[in-house]
């Protein structure tokens, strides 16, 4: 492992470990698991350092390795247990339930002026944690990584109509959560 010199390892960890951990935690809920996956990412990166092409940024390359590890983790979890997406779907939302509760609620934009950006971000982060983990990952792929729908579907092994339904349901969950937090 000639490439894995001490200097490389130290710089890798010092410069990128917190970023990678934060990226992993944007998609996962379990901090210990996230730390393990970051460590695995470094191990893979060091053994594959010769395949790294200088054209892309090192951080981008590391993030893509980490992202594959996260997806592999979900795939394994799904074959071991039940599919978290389909089991959430089968929970049978009561038809029309979400609308009936909407009677006198104010729209979210009415509170925007009273709430600071930081507050909104914090509340939003809390509410994102209410989503099933895989949905959280999909939301992050869409809004942070700005991936195209086809890429998201391929990565998460879902159909495009699944994707619309997940985005729709995720927004309903987020909206419910934000309304409760701000007592709308």
């Amino acid at each position, binding site marked *: 492992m000639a490439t894995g010199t001490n200097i490389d390892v130290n710089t890798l960890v010092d410069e990128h470990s917190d970023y990678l951990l934060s990226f992993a935690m944007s998609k996962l809920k379990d901090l210990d698991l996230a730390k393990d996956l970051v460590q695995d990412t470094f191990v893979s990166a060091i053994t594959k350092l010769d395949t790294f092409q200088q054209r892309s940024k090192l951080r981008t390359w590391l993030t893509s390795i980490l992202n594959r590890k996260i997806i592999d983790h979900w795939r394994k979890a799904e074959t071991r247990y039940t599919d978290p997406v389909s089991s959430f779907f089968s929970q049978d939302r009561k038809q029309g339930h979400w609308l009936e509760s909407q009677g006198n609620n104010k729209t*979210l934009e009415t509170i925007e002026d009273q709430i600071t950006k930081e507050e909104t*971000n914090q509340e939003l982060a809390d509410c994102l944690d209410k989503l099933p983990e895989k949905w959280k990952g999909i939301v992050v792929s869409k809004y942070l990584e700005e991936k195209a729908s086809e890429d998201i579907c391929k990565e998460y092994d879902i159909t495009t109509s699944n994707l619309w339904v997940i985005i*729709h349901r995720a927004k309903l969950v987020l909206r419910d959560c934000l309304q409760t937090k701000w007592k709308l």
Partner: protein
Amino acid sequence: MEIVKRCEQITLDYERSRFQPLSVKDRVQLRMHLGICKKCRHYLKDSQKIDVWLKRRFERLDETYHFSSDEKITLKKSLKH
């Protein structure tokens, strides 16, 4: 195919329309439904607001999580083997 769609289907159609163009029929149904349904108009407004907030939140990734310095030392050691 039902003539009057439920609100849940209408709002789903709306989310789908953000990814791909709707058929003429779906588009007309969506527009007519929105004309008479306050709750779905409310949903649309909230959905757009959530979009804006999510985009703003994820403009960049904040480093909010950190390995402790001890963990970093252990991590470096394990990678040098």
